[in-house]
């Protein structure tokens, strides 16, 4: 029976104030004794503490000494059908193993003829008895423990100084769902989930080419989280792949749960407020980026993957842009651009024009605003602060609530608070219009992470506007553009293709030209093969013009 650790180990708080009881000391000493015995057995048999000795008893003792208190650990002694004289131990984590596959495996092991009737040595014989699937032999304890805790079933057989790792894991996971954070009207509706193997399969399902490569890393000294690096050989620049590999290997963390925990280690500007990595849960987005010569990084347990390198424009594009016609996609992109400008500049301009530079506003507009603000007790900057805080509160509250309640909260909050605050004379009605437009404008940015950066920029802009008016807005804008033009990831300028100006890349920037015109991959990614599509080498039999001059004259 596994014992509860909590019963024996005093809490950290208690240990500071009370001394362990004699009973606790006795229990700890007993466990230490067990562990030492198991280690000594391996050391005597193999001459190496880190390798399996071949004794099932020792293996069980060692596993129990390390994981014995785990309630989901299952150690099961079985008798092999073809070698009943060899004690055998099956070890797995309950809940991470497919029970059907486990049952089938045990059935096959219990079954079988005599050991002597099987061809080859015992190891080969056992291998032949195991079910189809991934089976590996391993003798290093560190690897075995990592695999065991990842859902792999271990099989120890007396006399064999190694264990078989049977991949019959079935990790708890939800099905493939819709990309809730990046919905699309048309096109694929497939999102990643928390299981890395599923995510890799989803990518593989779309790129049927052996040049699609995955490389895995284990990051996190405790979590040993699997991180996969994907790229397409022959497209992606090997220098980029090498750089990402090195940076992934250099990550020193005790645990990793999210892809966003890894991303700051992969670029040179971890303190910047602008996102330098575009994360997505859309499979088609990752595939598109891979085909453009980028690398993708996927983390086991996180349905959000990210691609590298990225520029500013990547955060304003969606897969929908490539599903619709060029006209529609270009229009949508322009709308997003307008949305950003409205979100970023509308309220700072209001502050600047009606607090500092009213001489720049048409007279009728000045009079209208002055009339609306007759009895408002606060200056415009305070109004903006009040309204924006309300918007942020509503947004944050809506994030924490279930969807139906969030919608209600948003509607009721906006209408009730908006109406009440105007009637109370705290803000003027024009401010309500401006706040609404600004909020909507900033939320047109497809990438959530970029929206947060622009919300910060908004406040810097507001401060600049309230201090020196329009001049302040210009000053902050110049600083902003200067700062962004200095950013780069893996050699890709953040503001490309505008700074530096790359005319050949402009076809897929603010506007999106028809897809047949976009024949080249972005030069900023330095792909090995820039040509996206090549002209057909053989004449098209349907196109009569190709056949002209080939027939009898």
């Amino acid at each position, binding site marked *: 029976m596994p014992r509860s650790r909590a019963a024996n180990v005093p809490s950290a708080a208690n240990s500071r104030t009370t001394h362990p009881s004699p009973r606790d000391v006795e229990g700890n000493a007993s466990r230490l004794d067990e562990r030492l015995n198991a280690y000594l057995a391996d050391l005597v048999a193999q001459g190496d503490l880190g390798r399996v000795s071949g004794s099932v008893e020792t293996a069980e003792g060692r596993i129990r000494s390390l994981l014995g208190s785990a309630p989901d650990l299952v150690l099961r002694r079985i008798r092999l059908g073809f070698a009943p004289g060899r004690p055998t131990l099956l070890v797995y984590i309950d809940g991470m193993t497919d029970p059907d596959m486990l049952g089938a495996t045990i059935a096959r092991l219990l079954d079988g003829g005599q050991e002597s009737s099987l061809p080859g040595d015992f190891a080969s014989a056992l291998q032949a008895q195991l079910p189809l699937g991934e089976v590996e032999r391993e003798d290093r304890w560190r690897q075995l423990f990592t695999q065991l805790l990842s859902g792999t079933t271990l099989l120890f057989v007396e006399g064999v100084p190694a264990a078989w790792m049977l991949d019959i894991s079935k990790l708890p996971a939800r099905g493939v769902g819709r990309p809730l954070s990046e919905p699309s009207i048309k096109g694929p509706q497939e999102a990643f989930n928390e299981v890395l193997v599923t995510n890799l399969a989803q990518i593989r399902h779309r790129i049927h080419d052996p040049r699609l490569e995955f490389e895995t890393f284990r990051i996190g000294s405790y979590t040993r989280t699997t991180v996969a690096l994907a790229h397409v050989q022959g497209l992606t620049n090997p220098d980029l792949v090498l750089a990402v590999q090195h940076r992934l290997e250099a990550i020193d963390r005790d645990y990793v749960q999210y892809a966003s925990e890894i991303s700051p280690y992969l670029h040179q500007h971890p303190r910047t407020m602008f996102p330098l990595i575009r994360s997505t849960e859309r499979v088609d987005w990752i595939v598109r980026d891979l085909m453009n010569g980028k690398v993708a990084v996927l983390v086991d347990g996180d349905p959000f993957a990210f691609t590298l390198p990225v520029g500013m424009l990547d955060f304003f594009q969606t897969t929908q842009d490539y599903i619709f016609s060029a006209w529609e996609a270009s229009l949508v992109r322009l709308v997003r651009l307008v949305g950003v400008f409205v979100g970023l500049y509308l309220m700072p301009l209001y502050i600047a024009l009606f*607090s500092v530079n*009213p*001489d720049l506003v048409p*007279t009728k507009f000045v*009079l209208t605003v002055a*009339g609306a*603000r*007759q009895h408002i007790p606060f200056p415009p900057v305070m109004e903006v602060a009040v309204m924006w805080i309300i918007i942020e509160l509503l947004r944050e509250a809506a994030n924490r609530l279930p969807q139906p309640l969030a919608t209600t909260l948003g509607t009721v909050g906006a209408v009730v608070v908006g109406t009440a605050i105007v009637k109370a004379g705290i803000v003027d009605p024009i401010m309500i219009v401006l706040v609404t437009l600004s909020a909507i404008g900033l939320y047109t940015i497809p990438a959530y992470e970029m929206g947060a950066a622009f919300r910060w920029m908004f406040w810097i802009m507001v401060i600049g506007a309230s201090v*020196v008016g329009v001049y*302040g807005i210009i000053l902050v804008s110049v600083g902003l553009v200067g700062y962004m033009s200095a950013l780069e990831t893996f050699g890709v300028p953040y503001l490309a293709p505008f700074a530096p100006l790359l005319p050949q890349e402009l076809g897929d920037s603010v506007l999106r030209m028809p897809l047949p015109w976009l024949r080249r991959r972005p030069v900023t990614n330095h792909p090995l093969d820039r040509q996206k599509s090549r002209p057909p080498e053989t004449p098209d039999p349907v196109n009569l013009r190709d056949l002209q001059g080939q027939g009898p004259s």
Partner: protein
Amino acid sequence: MAVVLLGVFLLLGGCWDNRSIEHRAIVLMIGIEPAQDGLISVYFQVPTSQALSSLSVSSSPSSASPATYVVGGVGKTVAQAMTQAQAKSSGDLYLGQVQEIVLSSQLPAAQFEDVLDFLARIGPMDKTSYVAVSPDPIQHITQHQPQEGLLPALYLTSFFSCRHCQEVYLARTVWDAEQHLQTPGMSMWLPVLRDHEANFRIDQAALYRQGQPVMTLTPEQTVYLGYLLNATAKASLPFTLHGAPVSVRALRSRTATHVVPEAGGVRLVADLKVQGILDTLPPGEATIANLRALEIEVSRGIAAQELTLIRSMQRQGVDPVGFLAPYLWQHQSLMPQANELYRNAGVEVRVHTRIIEVGDVL
């Protein structure tokens, strides 16, 4: 370093002087007239809070309460008068939205130049504010409420900003006035603003010589001056064809002027290309030959009127058209005798008229 820069930015940014728009008394019109003992009276027209509130909720201001109030001050200079007026207003008199400046035609030349100099030096004031001159009491003009229900300054802004709405486009901005005042060989002119029944009346021009109005044109003369200035948009003139009255409307011209040197002086040449619409012709008279005859008749009539106008302006020594300005620019040595040169110059007016449309006849 960053803290120092931020501190300097905040201290020198001028943000401490910023006042939100509702704390400013938005001056829409300034009226200036001479007061007793060589002083100047300045009137500032400001919209009332009721008028502003009605604007924000898209309703017309109540006729019971005035849409504007006037704050005035008297002083040796405009600045002094403004300081006195500021003491009578709870809000900061803000000149960044001044739409109209009305100057009294009684302002002496010295005060007039002082006023223009002051207006040019006020930082926030827009140099594109319209300027007009009025022989009426300025306080009365600034308190006038137009019948259309608009704020007075907005009424005048609408009037002056529409180039093709009026018979003659008479809008003059501070910028124009200063430019004409400073340009050799050119005289300043301003539209005359009169209080007329329920609205303003603006159909005359006052011609200035060295800051002093010396000639106020009649409405008809103003139309002919408009032809010379390319400012007449839709004049209508009566003529006769074979003794029958006919009317040519929407008359407008493209005028080019130049100077031809002659023995002992210069000749001023105005070349007008006029076009208009003939309302109608008497029955049986609608022939090409009659149209040509009418075009010649119109050309002669306009040429005669223009000649008379230019002669009268020569006698007064005012040249709002700027006949001589380009010539003097090329012959700087003639600057000192520019006035004499202009007065004694010969005049030639060439008018070519074309009827582009004939009412409902053809």
